[in-house]
């Protein structure tokens, strides 16, 4: 039939309702008279419906319900012993390969302990800024003067008796 190619180019727009009133009537008039274009239209409609169903299924239903049983079945096939052995193997593997530095842990701990013990001996922070503490005993006519001599690291507590 004459004009089938031109009509079939407009089928998608016809199904979407995007044709002008004049072209819409033109397509309908042609389809009423052309069985070939009617079948083409029906196939286009079926394809569209199928695509729409697929699109809805892929977004709304990710088919996890189908996947979970398979995952659970896979886990169930590994026994507890097998799982424990797997963990042990992984730890040993780490120890023998990447975890070699852990062998130095006792030495590092000993070194840290040495630092803690020796550092006060080297630094003696308690000696820095330590003030002479004086507590009067009994007599109220006694005052004290403290003089420090940095050059010899000594100090003098001088007892001053007011009657003396």
């Amino acid at each position, binding site marked *: 039939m004459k004009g089938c190619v031109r009509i079939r180019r407009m089928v998608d727009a016809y199904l979407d309702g995007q044709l002008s009133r004049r072209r819409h009537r033109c397509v309908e008039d042609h389809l009423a008279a052309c069985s070939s274009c009617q079948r083409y239209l029906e196939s286009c409609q079926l394809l569209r419906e199928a695509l729409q169903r697929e699109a809805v299924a892929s977004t709304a239903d990710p088919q996890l319900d189908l996947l979970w049983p398979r995952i659970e079945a896979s886990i169930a096939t590994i026994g507890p012993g097998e799982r424990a052995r797997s963990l042990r193997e992984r730890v040993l593997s780490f120890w023998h390969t990447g975890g070699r530095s852990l*062998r130095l842990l*006792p*030495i590092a701990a*000993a070194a840290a*302990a*040495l630092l803690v*013990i*020796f550092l*006060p*001996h080297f630094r*003696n922070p*308690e*000696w820095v800024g*330590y003030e*002479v*503490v*004086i*507590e*009067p*005993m*009994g*007599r109220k006519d*006694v005052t*004290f*003067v403290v*003089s420090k*001599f940095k050059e*010899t*690291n*000594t*100090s*003098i*507590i*001088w*007892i*001053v*008796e007011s009657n*003396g």
Partner: protein
Amino acid sequence: MRRNAALMAGLLMLIAATPLAHAQEGVPILVQVILASNTGRGFKPPALSYTVKLLRSPYDKYSSFHLLKEERLVLPLQREGSVTLPGNRVLVVTPLRATGKGAEIEASIQGYMRSKFLLRRGGTQFIGGLSEPGGDLLIAITHE
């Protein structure tokens, strides 16, 4: 590996035991009682020569020093040691804590004062000013 660990443990025990041993054998303290005056020509013990340098103003009024008494004490921690002073006074010395490098000492003279100070080994703390006929007492407490 085990040998290294044992070696390290032994070393740690040795280090940890050093201050304990030091504390157990006692803290050596030298107490010197000196009469400082500006009368006469008192002798100056060689050990006190540095003291003269220290005694600047207001302590430079003394021209002579007489060593009246010298006592060596070896005191365990928290144990008191006493030295009698002229004028029926008593100096009580107590090492409170000690390391290999020094000690914290408490020194008290009954009726006057109680003091606490840190002394490095070889360091000296002076206590002075107690009046005595002919001068003033100067007490030198040295951690030997």
